[in-house]
């Protein structure tokens, strides 16, 4: 019988048995719910950025509303004006939230007037309105003098406001997408890598492995297991990404950055590579244990490496996506799955580095698999207690 058929049968068993299980279906449903929820709930709570509602008490100076609107426009703010016949009516509206702020000013501009909030004063809004009222009164004074009106208008033009390194909405979105990607890869590797680990221990514990290995090569069993569970991981990732994109587009919360399609492709590629690397390591370490408790001990080194790689990616890459640390981490198989998609999300990695990193990681996976399969073969049939790595290696080599 060809080996690929054996591997395929093992993989298919994993896909059907686990894919049908309540645990997997619930976890897919749950993550989808959380993703969609995390977009919809803020949209319901906060909604769009709304205009500040300003109530003006009559009688008011002519042009007050226009002045406030003009000032708001100049500072890129939205206001919605309304008028009330007297102070009591305006304050009532303020109390029940119909307006956010009330402006009261003598119609003949004889006094500075007042700005009232309900509970908290909003300095930004207050200054905006104050600028309008002061300007109105100052204009009245200046109108009576023989000032050059044209020169005055020119003098009142506000300074231009700029930032040295302006952060566009696109940059923020890139940062967000990059971070979500790194977290997804970490969570994906852990949850499905540990499924491989527990699967290996269960097979060993239930002793079914003895029946299986009387026909299937240990290496093929490990490969089929990793591939089958990996296929479920890809299914979950696709569901997750589709749900997130759909929710983002539907709620309009997030303007998708220009890098989105590339980032998703990177996420898929590096999820697969990272999963293959870590699940192979977890799979053969699991074979060294004979009980679940021992398995989590055996897996500690892998967990540590994954966590360190993740934090290197988060801190070093976000700090300086093209720096030395980020570049070195690009070419190390354990950290590449976290670092490369993150750098790519910031557009801070040349294509040749991506290509080389993929090749190095694939080579790393292959070496780990060949070494791991031998340890796995030596350890998985051993029943008594926790086995040492060296003994497993030797026993398979005999």
């Amino acid at each position, binding site marked *: *019988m060809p080996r690929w058929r*054996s591997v395929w*049968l093992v993989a298919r*068993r994993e896909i*059907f*048995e686990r894919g049908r*299980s309540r645990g997997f279906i619930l976890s897919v449903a749950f993550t989808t719910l959380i993703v969609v929820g995390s977009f919809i709930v803020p949209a319901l709570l906060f909604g769009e950025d709304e205009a500040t509602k300003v109530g003006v008490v009559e009688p008011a100076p002519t042009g007050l509303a226009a002045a406030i609107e003009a000032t708001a426009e100049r500072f890129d703010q939205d206001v919605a004006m309304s008028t009330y016949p007297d102070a009591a009516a305006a304050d009532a509206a303020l109390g029940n939230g119909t307006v956010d702020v009330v402006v009261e000013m003598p119609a003949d501009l004889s006094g500075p007037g007042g700005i009232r909030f309900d509970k908290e004063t909003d300095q930004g809004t207050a200054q905006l309105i104050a600028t309008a009222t002061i300007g109105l009164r100052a204009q009245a004074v200046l109108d009576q003098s023989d000032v050059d009106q044209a020169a005055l208008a020119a003098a009142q033009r506000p300074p231009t406001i700029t930032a040295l390194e302006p952060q566009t909405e696109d940059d923020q979105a890139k940062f967000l997408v990059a971070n979500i990607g790194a977290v997804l890869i970490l969570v994906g590797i852990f949850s499905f890598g540990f499924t491989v680990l527990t699967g290996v221990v269960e*097979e060993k514990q*239930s*002793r*079914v*492995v*003895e*029946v*299986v*290995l*009387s*026909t*299937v*090569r240990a290496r093929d069993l490990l490969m089929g297991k990793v591939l089958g569970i990996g296929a479920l991981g890809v299914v979950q990732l696709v569901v997750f990404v589709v749900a997130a994109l759909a929710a983002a587009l539907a709620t309009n919360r997030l303007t998708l950055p220009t890098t989105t399609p590339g980032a998703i492709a990177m996420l898929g590629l590096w999820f697969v590579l990272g999963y293959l690397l870590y699940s192979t390591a977890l799979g053969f370490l699991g074979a060294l244990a004979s009980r679940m408790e021992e398995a989590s001990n055996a897996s500690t080194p892998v967990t540590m490496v994954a966590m360190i790689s993740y934090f290197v990616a988060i801190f070093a890459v976000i700090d300086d996506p093209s720096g030395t640390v980020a570049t070195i981490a690009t070419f190390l198989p354990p950290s590449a799955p976290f670092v490369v998609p993150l750098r790519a999300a910031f557009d801070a990695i040349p294509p040749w580095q991506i290509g080389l990193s993929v090749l190095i990681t694939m080579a790393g996976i292959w070496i780990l698999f060949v070494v791991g399969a031998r340890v796995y073969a030596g350890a998985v*049939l051993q*029943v008594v207690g926790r086995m040492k790595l060296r003994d497993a290696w030797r026993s398979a080599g*005999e």
Partner: protein
Amino acid sequence: MLEILDLAKRYGPVVALDGTTFTARPGRIVGFLGPNGAGKTTTMRCVFGLARPERGEVRWKGSIVDRDTRLRFGYMPEQRGLYPRMRVAEQLSYFAQQHGLPGKVANAAALRWLERMGLADRAKSKLEELSHGNQQRVQLATALVHDPELLVLDEPFSGLDPIGIATMTDVVRERAGAGVGVVFSSHQLDLVEDVCEDVVIIARGRVVASGPIEELKSASGRQHLEVEVAGSDGEWLDGRRDLTVLERSGDRVKLLVDRSVDLDDLLGRARAAGEVRMFAYGPPKLSELFMEAVAPDVATEGVA
């Protein structure tokens, strides 16, 4: 024909196999016997490549057994194990396919064997929902589902009730009748005597006796003698060196005696001791052959 040739295997300081050699012919049921730790399971694991011998080889029909050959073998390990949460029919079909059967053929074979085992109504149950005895039947079906040329069963009867044992022996006999080679290990020697034509007895990794049961019996230097003398607990035997007392219960003694023993003389002594109610002489039982064959071990290893 299965040939086990000069297998040697150590686990650290423990010698598991030390030149184990025997053969099993198609259509014959071979009982593979030995005290605990004698090397039965290790030998079987060597047949399936689950243990690597340091020396020696396993041959099937003249050529060394490899993975493709093993696809035509069926194995029931001593440590039972199947996937607990997998449905029974799917599980059988899975193992059939791993032995090379195409999907549809495997599905049909799974259902056929479940029916044969009286488990047709449990096809869609998960294995863990079945009773211990039924799980054991599924385990046997797993070894049989791909219609193997050789069946290797490690303690297939342990933990079974009499009905289960009857099903198992029926199936094993039927397969042997179809020309399948069967090797099984067991500690239930009466059952082995009932089911097997040939036996192989192993002790400390070496085969100490093998061949058809009848031949072994007639070749044995000692015969079985059971005597009942009213009112005597066998003191009339005292001082005899040519016999071994197996058991004394009440008036009855069971003995192994040399073939050269003078039966008239023994009968005379028994008569002198009291009224002889029974004096039965004949070939030894398998259990007696076994004890005799592994005798040097019994003191240290014991028999389960």
